[in-house]
């Protein structure tokens, strides 16, 4: 009787084992980032997401591939996974959030989020447009602790007059950096870091801040471009290493400052912060600028950054000169405010905001030119202190005085006419 030959069984077993062994070896050669993930879905996301999105929205895949997140092995699901309080979307086998918020970033970047959440970029930015109605009591209390009166306030009177379309496409585009989210968090980190690039370099570019900090009401980008800092940056930026880790940033990487260098960076051992208000000593945005409650600490911290390039004496001189502009502007704005107040006291203006030309004139006075003069002084923009600031302040104050006189004259003419009409009627 024929028996099975050992050779055949041996070859079959050997071949089968060799195939399994080869599969194990190939699998072991896969990058750890592809396989060592917290769940099977995370493993799948390392390749499956890009498989479709390379065809549908290819730019986001390429942006992600060049990002620091990709280099560190963070995959799509790490960021897009829906968290508590976020609307969920079932998307081709994955459950993702319909809208990512700062809460998703805060999973890994909690310190940065906490710093951001106490900054004026957070709740005060949105409240400046919409008032306090969108915030929880807890969020209001947290923001008011750092910025009194900045959140517990009414919606912006001007934006209400301009209407929802203007708010949506105009005001909100910048101010939503501090919009409250359904998940309890505030704002969005991608406004500065972009979405799939999640770039430090982008946040360091002055143009990124300049997306909002530009124009007549806060012309920081224009002032920076005119300043020595801006001119040097534009001339030398190709030599900079803008991607360097924020904890390791040195003047060797960026020998010229951008907005983030002075306001946020941990330059050469300085404390890095995402609270953009932490190094600000004056309320420059206000009509009348006062010292901030953290004046001393803020000025010390800002000057620590200045000291990386300048000696103490010129820094102090620079501050003294800038503070002199603030003081002078305060006097000018106060004079203009008194003109308006007197007109109100004399019932020459209605209580309703923005319904008379002189109200717009006064608003432009402090909101455009007063701010510009002060920002110009603190950012080294001489032309903005003078021609876009003080010259306009002088010209407009003269205009306001003339307008006030005209209003009084018109009222006087109206009173005289009323009297003569009344006398005429009594004579009849």
């Amino acid at each position, binding site marked *: 009787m024929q028996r*099975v030959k050992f050779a*055949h069984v041996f070859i*079959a077993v050997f071949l*089968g084992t060799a*195939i399994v062994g080869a599969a194990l070896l190939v*699998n072991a050669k896969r990058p750890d980032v592809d396989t060592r993930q917290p769940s*099977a879905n995370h493993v799948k996301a390392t*390749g499956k997401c890009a498989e479709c999105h390379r065809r549908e929205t290819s730019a986001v895949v390429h942006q992600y591939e060049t990002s620091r997140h990709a280099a560190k092995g963070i995959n799509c699901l790490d960021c897009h996974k829906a968290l508590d309080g976020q609307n969920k979307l079932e998307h081709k086998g994955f459950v993702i959030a319909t809208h990512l918020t700062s809460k998703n970033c805060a999973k890994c970047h909690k310190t940065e989020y906490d710093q951001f959440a106490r900054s004026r970029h957070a709740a005060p930015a949105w409240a400046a447009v919409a008032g306090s109605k969108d915030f929880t009591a807890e969020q209001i209390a947290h923001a008011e602790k750092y910025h009194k009166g900045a959140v517990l306030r009414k919606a912006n009177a001007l934006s209400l007059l301009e209407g929802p379309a203007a708010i949506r496409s105009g005001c909100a585009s910048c101010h939503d950096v501090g919009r409250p989210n359904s998940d309890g968090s505030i704002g969005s980190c991608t406004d500065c870091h972009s979405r799939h690039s999640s770039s430090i370099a982008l946040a360091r570019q002055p143009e990124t801040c300049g997306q909002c900090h530009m124009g007549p009401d806060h012309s920081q980008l224009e002032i920076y471009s005119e300043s020595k800092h801006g001119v040097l940056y534009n001339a030398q930026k190709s030599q900079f290493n803008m991607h360097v880790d924020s904890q390791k940033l040195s003047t060797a990487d960026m020998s010229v400052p951008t907005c983030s260098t002075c306001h946020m960076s941990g330059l050469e051992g300085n404390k890095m912060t995402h609270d953009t208000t932490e190094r600000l000593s004056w309320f420059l945005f206000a009509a009348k600028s006062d010292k901030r409650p953290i004046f001393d600490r803020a000025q010390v911290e800002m000057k620590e950054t200045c000291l990386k390039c300048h000696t103490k004496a010129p820094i102090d001189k620079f501050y003294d000169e800038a503070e002199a502009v603030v003081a002078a502007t305060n006097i000018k704005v106060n004079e203009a405010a008194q003109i308006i107040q007197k007109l109100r006291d004399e019932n020459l203006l209605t209580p309703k905001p923005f319904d008379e030309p002189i109200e717009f004139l006064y608003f432009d006075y402090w909101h455009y030119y007063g701010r510009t003069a002060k920002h110009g002084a603190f950012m080294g923009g001489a032309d903005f202190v003078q021609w876009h600031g003080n010259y306009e302040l002088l010209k407009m104050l003269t205009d306001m005085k003339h307008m006030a006189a005209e209003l009084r004259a018109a009222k006087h003419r109206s009173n005289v006419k009323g009297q003569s009409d009344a006398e005429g009627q009594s004579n009849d």
Partner: protein
Amino acid sequence: MTDPQAEKSPLKVWLVEWFALGNLAFLALDIYMAHSINQFTHWAEWTPVVFSLGVPIVLLPGVLARRHRTGTARFAGMSVGIASVLLGIVGMVLHLESTFFSEQTLKALIYAAPFAGPLSYTGVGLLLILNRLEPDDSPHWGTWIIFLALCGFVGNLSLSLCDHAQNGFFHPTEWISVAASAFAVSFLLIAVIRPQEIWFLKWCVAMMLLQVIVGLLGFALHLIADFTGPAANLTTNLIYGAPIFAPLLFPNLAILAAIGIWELQSSRMIETAVV
């Protein structure tokens, strides 16, 4: 029309006809689910579904009459066979095009559409052609059937490797199907090379029984994975989660191989009896 005068097909050949018909029909459902992942983005993704729904009707009269070698049944079977072969090859190229043609990496291969999937049409098409070109009394018919089952298991090996690699073999049980299909390949390869070894064919039967068990186990594990999947409803998990029908390819191919082994054993026993 089938020729009523023609001789009826032998049982094993007839079973393979049923096998081909059943597989072509079932592929309609399987591919409908697979292409639902892509939401049938490209019109060409409907082609295999329509094909699989249409061709069983063409094949059915010949299969029911158990006469497939003559007349219209032969022509229909050959046409369907050739079309299936071409459909499978074109499908494989189109599947690879999704990513692999632009980036030839292991990762691109793993996450591309399953390139071996469409070759199931090629395999079934070749079965139909084999049944019409190889005579009923051919000593090679059984070997060819085992060879095609072997090719199926090679495809199955690559599918289970790539599919489970997408999960990074997160669950160790995902290696079972890879190991099972690897041994199916090695045993059937020896069977094809040495078809006269009846005793080894018995070992192959045992190996095929193991494939049936692995397939059913895989079906159960995939079903559990889909019931506990991330989506709120089962349908979504069935479409995007573990492919529910994929493990059934193991018993499916095991049956085909078993028919081939049966044929080889019976012809060998006849030869032995004659000698």
